């Protein structure tokens, strides 16, 4: 679905329940760093469901300045976050 280098945006959604996408990246844009093997969906497993279908996991790299507009450090500082495919949308650069 996405390839390394693609720019993506994390859905700015706030569904109830057990979610593994932290609030600080919701609505933020980053770049796919790595595509990981699909795994059982923890947001389903957490409630005793099967976790199927498996979801592709991505490592998404965010610039600190994108996450925190008042970030005082250098522009090259980043946070890599593990995010499942259903939270990601492709963006035009």
């Amino acid at each position: 679905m996405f390839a390394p280098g693609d720019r993506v945006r994390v859905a700015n959604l706030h569904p109830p329940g057990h979610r593994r996408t932290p609030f600080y990246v919701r609505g933020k844009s980053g770049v796919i760093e790595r595509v990981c093997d699909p795994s059982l969906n923890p947001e389903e497993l957490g409630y005793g469901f099967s976790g199927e279908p498996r979801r592709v996991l991505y490592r998404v790299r965010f610039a600190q300045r994108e996450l925190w507009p008042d970030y005082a450090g250098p522009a090259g500082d980043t946070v890599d976050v593990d995010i499942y495919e259903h939270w990601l949308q492709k963006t035009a650069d």
Partner: protein
Amino acid sequence: MAHEHEHGHDHDHHDHGHDHEHAHPGVQADDETAPSDYELRMLAISELLVEKGVISRDQIRRSLERLDSWQPSRGAEIVARAWLEPEFKARLLANGSEAIKDFGIDMGETVLTVVENTPGVQNVIVCTLCSCYPRAVLGLPPDWYRSKSYRSRVVKEPRQVLAEFGTVLPDDVAVRVHDSLADLRYLVLPQRPPETAGWNAEQLAAIVTRDCMVGVINPDPRSRAH
């Protein structure tokens, strides 16, 4: 249990909100404070599983004993070998879980992702949601790693947090924080200090401490006991 080997997420995700790594059914460490709701729930479930014969007290005890036997020295041996053997280092970076089978460590489905420090990059690990940690290679996480302070601050002001550990980085070194939230576990491969030329694996492993492999400090060649 999907992750019998690593004892990974199942256990990790039960850490929320209690300070006791080892609340057992039965014998407890001394503790003057009232148990939290989570501890009471955990104890109740544990007692029920024992009563119904699903698991035995000995199985619980054995798995805790096994977990306690995992120490950061395992990670240090892995790092030392990566420093000495380029072929092993390449395999370790490509697929950590496969490479560490050489050391008899089986992480099951959990993917050990090794991130390498370079002259221009310092990697740091955190789990902002709970306390995911590469237990199979580092053992149990230190209290500070599980603290709300570390978890909330290191993704937002990593340079200040690192400075509090004594690690002050120049601006031309990028700080790359890794928030461990899924089925990956991270291990930092520090840079080998140039002063260690000619050292053997055992000497090298001695300077690779737990905190180096979380990324909050770097190996100090002077720290080796002579």
